[in-house]
């Protein structure tokens, strides 16, 4: 077993990225994710890689676009306001089928908001964020270990499906420290060669073109159906979800990322108090674990969705259960002192368990 490291979440995601072969990082400072560019600026030069602090998040995501088009694993990171600026580039990357990993360590919003833990960017991450109707693969780790593991998974999925992947974290898991076992990188699958990348035409008969403009009759529609099929494949094959005690549950709590950590303790308190409470923790937010919710609510008819916002994932939970369960919501929408405690969530569980 590898020696356990004791690192911040923001560092764990970098260690995972580097283990997965990422040697290019382009970014711009914003709290609470600054440990990511700082770590990459320390480590990448010695590995023969490139760290570049861009003039803006807009420029950074376009450098990512260029590096990805050039055929390498590349990463950027930011927080809500910066992700808004990157939305344009993300849309182009989705349209151009360019893989990359984008880390969003969320802060509270809207606007400048605050730097405390929040999950205010669920919609932005899962429903597109930019224009034109596309999806990112969205992964929501809830521990330092999972930040490391999913960082590697994100690169693999992005390369396999040619869809940009976002790691959606919050200030809690970004800033906290825990033990991390740095397992060696093992690719999820045999990954396709990047024969579409630009390298200079060389001996190829035709030049490669990386683009998102399709002007000929029917070309754009065909392209969009192809992307749609890709998203459907992700839904069919790549859903990840953790469940605890849902087989006999009378009430299912659902939460992702940092909120799920707090929820786990609340669920354990409820079980000790004799309440049959289970947990569904979506790990992939896109693809969303629709079937897990559907199946679990065939028996258990009540779900409490807990988020660090005013209710975003709860919409996907409701769509998934399709009226066969009563889906309720409890959230704290961010700001200093707004992080719920396990005791607070336990109270909510007691309340929703009864009526």
């Amino acid at each position, binding site marked *: 077993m590898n020696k356990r490291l004791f690192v911040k979440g923001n560092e764990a995601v970098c260690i995972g990225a580097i283990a997965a072969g990422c040697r290019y990082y382009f970014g711009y400072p914003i709290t609470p994710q600054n440990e990511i560019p700082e770590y990459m600026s320390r480590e990448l030069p010695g590995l023969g890689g490139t760290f570049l602090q861009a003039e803006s998040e807009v420029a950074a995501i376009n450098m990512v676009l*260029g590096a990805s088009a*050039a055929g390498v694993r590349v990463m950027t990171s930011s927080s809500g306001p910066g992700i808004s600026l990157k939305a344009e580039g993300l849309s182009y990357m989705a349209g151009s089928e360019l893989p990359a990993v984008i880390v969003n360590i969320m802060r509270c919003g809207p606007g400048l908001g605050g730097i405390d833990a929040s999950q205010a960017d669920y919609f932005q991450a899962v429903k597109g964020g930019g224009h034109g109707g596309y999806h990112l693969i969205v992964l929501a780790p809830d521990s330092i270990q999972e930040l490391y593991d999913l960082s590697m998974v994100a690169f693999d999925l992005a390369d396999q499906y040619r869809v940009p992947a976002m790691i959606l974290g919050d200030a809690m898991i970004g800033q906290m420290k825990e033990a991390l076992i740095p397992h060696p990188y093992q690719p999820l699958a045999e990954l396709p060669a990047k024969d579409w990348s630009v390298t*200079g035409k060389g001996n190829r008969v035709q030049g490669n073109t990386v683009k998102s403009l399709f002007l000929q009759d029917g070309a754009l529609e065909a392209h969009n159906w192809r992307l749609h099929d890709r998203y459907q494949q992700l839904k069919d094959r790549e859903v990840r979800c953790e469940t605890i005690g849902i087989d006999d549950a009378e009430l299912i709590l659902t939460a992702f990322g940092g909120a799920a950590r707090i929820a786990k303790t609340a669920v354990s308190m409820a079980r000790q108090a004799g309440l049959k409470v289970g947990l569904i923790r979506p790990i992939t937010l896109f693809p969303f674990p629709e079937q897990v919710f559907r199946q679990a609510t065939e028996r258990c008819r009540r779900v409490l969705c807990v988020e660090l916002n005013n209710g975003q994932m709860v919409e996907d939970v409701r769509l998934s259960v399709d009226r066969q369960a009563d889906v309720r919501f409890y959230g704290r929408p961010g700001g200093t002192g707004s992080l719920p405690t396990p005791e607070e969530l336990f109270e909510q569980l007691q309340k929703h368990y009864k009526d």
Partner: protein
Amino acid sequence: MADSMITVFERPHSLKPVPSHFCSGCHHGTVHRLVAEALDQLELQQQTIGIASVGCSVLLYEYFDIDVVEAPHGRAPAVATGVKRVHPDSIVFTYQGDGDLAAIGTAEIIHAANRGEHLTVIFVNNTTYGMTGGQMAPTSLGGQVTTTTPYGRDLETDGNPIRMAELLALLDGTHFSARVSVDAPRRVAQAGKVIHKAFEMQKNRAGFAFVEVLAACPTNWGLSALDANERISQEMMPCFPLGTFKDLSGAQG
């Protein structure tokens, strides 16, 4: 006597044998050709990666027989930075219009130049947004009537025509900055030499090279091709003087 004929003029190999979509009298075709000739002469076609920008020039990949990445509006220098950092031995150029480079992409071009990225930038200045239908560009002249300055560009409220070649020459990262024109045969020839030099510098790893090309947009100017050429020398050149504003090529080893 067919066997004694020699080729005195041919299509550059870096261009595909296809008709272009450009309007009659448009200078994009001329500038494309000059870029392709430079790539041919320097034997760079196989290792060149072009970055297409948004506007009339977006269809770069329909005409150039090279690898191309399409960039979002204004972001070509950032995309080029990403590509070049991955493939430092390749030749990377951006081809951008005035709205793309001098308005929405001002930050990207200034910082790519300031970092001294080893790129060649071809900047086509025709004082208007061509593809969107002739709106005001940052390079539109004082008094110029466009679809968004129907009473003429008012320098008091609409700002002044921006001189990118001079502006970028001020940056320490810029190694070469020049303005040329393609309105007349002798100036086309001169423009070809300057563009050649800007690619040669990159081949020699000499740093950021910028060439602004004054070009016509007869369609949106509402002029014939000949009158449009006339406008370049009569109206544009007084505001956008031709010349080399910075040249550190001699300083390189």
